[in-house]
């Protein structure tokens, strides 16, 4: 343990840890709604588009974070318009984002060849050597905004994600909330790229949520549990990455996958044990809980 703690005396490690923890906290807050809406792959789609954004940053010499943010937010708006107004299925739109995003990124990086491909790698899989404190504070501000919005809007977001048709009849601003969900996903992707990398960012949106939902009964518990799990996974991943000197994206995602597999196994064992211990089978059919008025 002493080794782990001494690592964080380095300032770059403090920055890496802060940005990873912010991401671990805010990604599941958005991810819970994406999982609920069965849009879990959208994070991957925006992550691929973001590669183009990073390359635009290389090309123009601006900080990649801002060009990525602009590109992904623009892509999320286009995506939502396509989803709601055209006959193109979500699958096709997503496929176009996957191919177009990577191809655009590699092409533009090729044009800006001098500071090219080696640099791109750290955005794909994350890096401990983040830029200065200003960028870390930008990440923290973006993450806090995302987590705060999702916490405050939880009932509304959950309504449009669980049953969009009902939400429309209830008069909720469904189009605006859908757009907001995709835009916050775009912000999450942009602030996550330093810590987990663009190819792996979707894992932090999804893994903490599906890990805790094996034990939870409510959306509220799933959301808070997912945020806590994300925080732990991201923190442990950054530490392991520093100890072993590998990209943090890889360690964070591997720890996440291990957590998911372990909890899935534990959950199935618990279920089996409950079935065995309960000697009698559960009652079949549904008892009537309402008193039927007797007709004269």
């Amino acid at each position: 343990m002493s080794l782990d703690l001494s690592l964080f005396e380095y300032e770059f490690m403090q920055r890496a840890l802060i940005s990873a923890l912010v991401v671990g906290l805010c990604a599941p807050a958005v991810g819970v709604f994406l999982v609920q809406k069965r849009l879990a792959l959208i994070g991957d789609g925006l992550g691929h588009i973001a590669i183009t954004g990073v390359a635009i940053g290389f090309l123009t010499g601006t900080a990649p974070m801002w060009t990525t943010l602009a590109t992904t937010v623009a892509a999320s708006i286009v995506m939502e318009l396509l989803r709601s107004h055209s006959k193109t299925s979500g699958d096709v739109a997503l496929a176009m984002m996957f191919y177009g995003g990577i191809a655009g990124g590699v092409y533009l990086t090729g044009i800006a060849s001098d500071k090219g491909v080696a640099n791109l790698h750290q955005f794909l899989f994350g890096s401990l050597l983040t830029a200065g404190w200003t960028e870390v504070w930008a990440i923290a501000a973006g993450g806090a905004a995302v987590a705060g919005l999702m916490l405050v809007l939880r009932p509304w977001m959950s309504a449009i994600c669980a049953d969009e048709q009902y939400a429309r009849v209830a008069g909720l601003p469904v189009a605006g909330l859908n757009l907001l969900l995709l835009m916050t996903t775009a912000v999450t992707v942009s602030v996550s790229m330093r810590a987990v990398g663009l190819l792996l960012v979707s894992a932090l949106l999804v893994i903490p949520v599906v890990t805790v939902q094996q034990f939870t009964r409510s959306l509220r518990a799933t959301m808070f549990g997912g945020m806590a799990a994300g925080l732990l996974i991201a923190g442990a991943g950054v530490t392991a990455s520093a100890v072993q000197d590998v990209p943090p994206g890889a360690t964070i995602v591997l720890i996440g996958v291990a957590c998911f597999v372990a909890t899935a196994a534990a959950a199935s064992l618990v279920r089996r044990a409950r079935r065995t211990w309960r000697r009698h089978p559960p009652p079949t059919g549904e008892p009537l809980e309402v008193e039927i008025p007797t007709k004269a």
Partner: protein
Amino acid sequence: MPVIATRGATVSYGGRAVVRGADLDVEPGEAVALMGANGSGKSTLVKAIVGLVPLASGSIELFGTPQRRFRAWRRVGYVPQRTGAASGVPATATEVVSQGRLAHRLLGLPSRRADRDAVGHSLAEVGLADHAHCAVDTLSGGQQQRVLIARALATEPEILIMDEPTVGVDAETQAALAAVIADRVDAGCAVLLVTHELGPLTDRLDRAVVLADGAVVHDGSPPRPVGEHADPAHEHMHPHPSPHPHPEPDAALPRLPFERPNDEPADDTWGVQ
């Protein structure tokens, strides 16, 4: 002023008219059934009324306001036609029913006591007070349907629009729901019920509108079950008696003995020589 008034409502999917010139009125406090066979366009008409499918022609007014400009959705309780209340993430019955209060809440503000009371009361009304904190995906199909009805009740609507609320629900639950709906009708809530069968829910109706092939073919007193269908114990099964319940063996055909004679070896059973 009618709660719902459609005039010549026409809905088409890809050029094919599914609802053709339907006129439908629901007065305040009135309970109306929208009936018809599968594919007659009754669900589509209801989806047009709540704005989920666009009209090709005609007009729809809700509470005297053209539907496109209607914003007071808190006056409408809607139970969609679907199987199950579960989604990709666990949610408790309370959380699902709370969605019914969002029309009353300002975006981003926490729920008030009145919201929580309405949610608890609606759950109790459908008999799920004990299941308030159960995950909806662990509830039975009938219970999930009741959660969706409680969600519509929690809106405290002036009209309750229900699209096939009892499909695949056991008879007792149907009767229980009939009691809940009768209570709301007595309290002055209008009801528009889409159904394709007569059942406990249709006992309290004031009127039935029957659609066939997208057009209104009947608007008046609800059809009454006749003959054996009127018997409360009538099962919806139609066993067709066979003309020959116990066919006699035909003496003209050769009979094959299936018992093996004791003296014959087993190999020769099939007589293949």
